[in-house]
């Protein structure tokens, strides 16, 4: 019985399976064309389980993800699973992200006096992503009614409180006396410092939120208030990056947004792929155990995607890449399919390669061509920076390569086999590295000429590639 498209789509999603434009459930690629020696994708192409293991930058915790979880669940993981940050980042409760460069909110109409507000309390809720960073939460001019953090401690006006800065969401409150001197710092309601912090000598007519002089704040500031003053009080929700989000809720001292602040999407929260699981069932997982060499899958809280918005991962062109832990011992004929994009970081950008001396079937981009190699390099196609479906039948003098369905005709790529598979690097020992993306790589230990058209159509459909 054929299923209606909406029903089949929902069932397909529930099963974690791909869907094509046809009616009814569409089998996954490896269900239709089994026998792959290794298969890597962020989509479920036949494994049914986890497709990747990811390390988040915030605390370096790792977690496995299925294809269906490469979306909001992965973003939430990257955001530490923090429900408040997720509300902000997902847009359900937007916040302005202060970029630490030139974003701030100013309130005009003050008087340039170091004790202008007299006694008051200034309070704000902030999110600090990096405690080792420096930034100013608020100030009148450069150094009056000022709260800033520098080298890991809180400074008020011109005085170092020696109170350590901690990362995360927190509510800060500073009491000032009638001379403009600070007398207390409270964090989340607890008094962390008491004393006398003299005001500086550079007040101005602008009150700044998110800056003091050239020192800008990185993170979130919202629920801001200056209260208890006999001169002027104001308060802002700060639930966005428009002037309308910084209108005074207790008076008429509206704020003005400066710079080009973005809304918070998770800036400061990244995630990297430690393992790209082999969906072939052969356990040839591709791994990267060095943190600095792991391709990126979440960038500033957002899933990395290809040119068509399909989840992918970025290789940095420096040292990012995966390797299988052992050689596969494949001999020709071998057929490989790859979705890749290169912006050419060096003289050669490898999508797939092997180990020097251990058998190497290679797909990559040289300076002006896409290259296919198994002992003899062939460059049948002119290269560019776009995403492509590249495939190659490695079969000695009867080899053939394809670029988005266009065939090279018969070529001789050599007779090499495949040992360890390397993705994004041309050699586990180091060498040239891909600057770009690999979204899918499937290697068959067989001649797939009979199925090649259908396999390429399946892949092309899922990645929005028009075959010629």
């Amino acid at each position, binding site marked *: 019985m054929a299923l209606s498209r909406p029903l089949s789509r929902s069932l397909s999603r529930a099963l974690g399976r791909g869907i094509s434009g046809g009616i009814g459930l569409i089998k996954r690629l490896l269900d239709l064309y089994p026998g792959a020696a290794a298969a890597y994708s962020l989509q479920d192409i036949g494994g049914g389980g986890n497709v990747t293991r990811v*390390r988040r930058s915030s605390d370096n915790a790792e977690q496995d993800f299925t294809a269906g979880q490469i979306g909001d669940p992965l973003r939430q993981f990257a955001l530490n699973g923090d429900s408040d940050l997720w509300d902000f980042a997902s847009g359900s409760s937007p916040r302005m992200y202060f970029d630490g460069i030139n974003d701030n909110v100013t309130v005009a109409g003050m008087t340039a006096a170091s004790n202008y507000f007299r006694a008051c309390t200034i309070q704000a809720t902030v999110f600090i992503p990096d405690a080792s960073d420096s930034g100013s939460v608020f100030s009148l001019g450069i150094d009056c009614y000022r709260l800033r953090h520098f080298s890991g401690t809180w400074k008020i006006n011109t005085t170092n409180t020696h109170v350590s800065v901690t990362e995360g969401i927190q509510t800060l409150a500073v009491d000032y006396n009638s001379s403009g001197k600070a007398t207390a710092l409270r964090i989340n309601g607890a008094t962390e410092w008491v004393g006398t912090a003299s005001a500086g000598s550079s007040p101005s007519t602008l009150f700044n939120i998110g800056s003091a002089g050239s020192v800008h704040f990185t993170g979130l500031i919202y629920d801001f208030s200056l209260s208890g003053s006999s001169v002027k009080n104001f308060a802002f929700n700060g639930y966005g990056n428009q002037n309308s989000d910084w209108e005074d809720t207790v008076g008429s001292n509206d704020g003005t947004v400066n710079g080009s602040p973005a809304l918070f999407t998770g800036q400061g929260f990244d995630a990297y792929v*430690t393992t790209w699981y082999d969906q072939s069932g052969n356990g040839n997982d591709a791994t990267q*155990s060095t*943190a600095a060499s792991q391709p990126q899958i979440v960038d500033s809280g957002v899933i990395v995607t290809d040119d068509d918005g399909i989840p992918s991962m970025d290789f940095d062109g420096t040292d990012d890449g995966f390797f299988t832990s052992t050689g596969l011992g494949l001999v020709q004929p071998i057929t490989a399919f790859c979705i890749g994009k290169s912006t050419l970081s060096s003289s050669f950008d490898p999508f797939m390669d092997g180990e020097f001396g251990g058998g190497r079937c290679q797909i990559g981009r040289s300076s002006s061509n896409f290259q296919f190699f198994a002992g003899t390099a062939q460059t049948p196609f002119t290269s560019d920076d776009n995403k492509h479906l590249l495939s190659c039948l490695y079969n000695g003098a009867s080899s053939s390569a394809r670029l988005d369905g266009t065939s090279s005709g018969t070529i001789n790529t050599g007779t090499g086999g495949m040992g360890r598979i390397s993705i994004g690097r041309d050699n586990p020992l180091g060498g040239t590295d891909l600057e770009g993306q690999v979204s899918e790589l499937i290697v068959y230990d067989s001649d797939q000429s009979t199925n090649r058209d259908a396999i390429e159509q399946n892949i092309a459909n899922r990645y929005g590639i028009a075959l010629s």
Partner: protein
Amino acid sequence: MKYLILESGIAYARALSAAMWGVTRPSGDNSTKYYVGTLQHPDGRAALQVLGEAIETEDEDGNPAYVFTESQPIHKDCDASAFREVIKDSVTEAEANAIEAGIEAAKGGRMSLLSVVLASPSLSPRLKTKEELQADGWFPEPQE
């Protein structure tokens, strides 16, 4: 990114990278085992990646200061002495003590390896750029 040249070979370089990871994620419960990459020269020397750059600036009192573009999380429960046990082979005892104390002080926060290297007379002369390594034959010629 720069590279720290180590005369002791690739095994030591990897041990140092693993020790760096150990201060970031001491539980060792995950698949990541090393913090930065390592390189091996054909003559047996090894190099450790040193992430980020040091940008010269001024502190609020106008004194020269550096801002480091990359810093490493230092776990609150890490064992600074374990890192010392590895780094001590490359530095003087006084430097090893200072590095251990620096890690202790940074627990729960962040620390830049580059700042450690620049502050260590034993390590700072060994800091090289990629261009310097290329000229010294560290990277194999691209192969087909």
